[in-house]
């Protein structure tokens, strides 16, 4: 017998792509099904199979599906935008966040003005809405991004890179 391991009846997408035998304990098989060949092709093009193997081996098994999903997403973004990849998406979302924060500040100022100028005696108590929680319950965006610790704060606000 050439091999002790039984031959898999169906190779996973990774082993099919790399034209190798897919074993029972193939690391890729649970995450790259045979009916999703493009998924592995994208990840392979950006990261390479050996790097994906290392990344998955560093992650606990229960979290590997999420890790693969994030790698697939990053690969797709990189293929769509070879220069900025996911960073372009982050910069775009940050811009939208800053715009929303500005709009909320404007709305809050307007509401404060309305409540001081209106002639309705008990507007603040009869309003059907009860969302005014100081800063609208939002955490500071700057604090959030800094906490991620990746240095993506002020640089990305103006331009992805200085």
């Amino acid at each position, binding site marked *: 017998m050439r091999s002790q391991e039984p031959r898999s009846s169906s190779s996973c997408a990774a082993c099919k792509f790399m034209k190798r035998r897919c074993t029972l304990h193939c690391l890729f098989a649970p995450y790259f099904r045979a009916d999703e060949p493009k998924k592995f092709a994208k990840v392979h093009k950006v990261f390479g199979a050996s790097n994906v193997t290392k990344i998955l081996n560093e992650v606990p098994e229960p979290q590997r599906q999420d890790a693969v*999903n994030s790698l697939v997403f990053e690969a797709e973004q990189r293929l769509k935008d070879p*220069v900025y990849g*996911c960073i372009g998406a982050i910069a775009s979302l940050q811009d939208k966040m800053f715009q929303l924060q500005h709009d909320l500040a404007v709305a809050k100022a307007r509401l404060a003005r309305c409540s001081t100028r209106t002639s309705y005696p008990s507007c603040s108590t009869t309003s059907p809405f009860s969302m005014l929680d100081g800063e609208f319950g939002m955490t500071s965006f700057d604090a959030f991004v800094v906490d991620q610790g990746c240095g993506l704060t002020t640089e990305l606000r103006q331009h992805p890179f200085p």
Partner: protein
Amino acid sequence: MHRFHKLDKMTSTRCAVCKYFRRRCPPDCIFAPYFPNDNPQRFTCVHRFYGASNIGKMLEEMPVQLRADAVESLYYEAKCRIQDPVYGCVGIITSLHRQIQIAQSQLAKAQAEISFLDANFVGVEPTSSLSESLVQQNGVEHDLDDPFSTWFY
């Protein structure tokens, strides 16, 4: 002496990539402008996830003027992946999505409150233009929703 002088010259001008691979750094090395030899950590960080040959292919396929930004973005993504091996920078994107959804919800409530006050109070200045502009800006135009709603929620 001549041999050592030549070796010193080669060593001092090698980029971080060629130094890592212990090879001669040619004058037209594609990596040299972006991986200087005084910052070896930058390359090891990127190489850990992408591999030098993939990085080289990516750089070759794009105009020269965009390569610096491409290397920066690869470096940021690699740093994110080191900090969060499971989600990498995708974790930041999902968190931003959540914060944007919260902010949109709060903004919608504020707009409704403003409209209520406008409709019921006397002497309040017209606000239709502000409300309308806020409503128009409420939508988030991006195509990143579907992957996250499928995976993480």
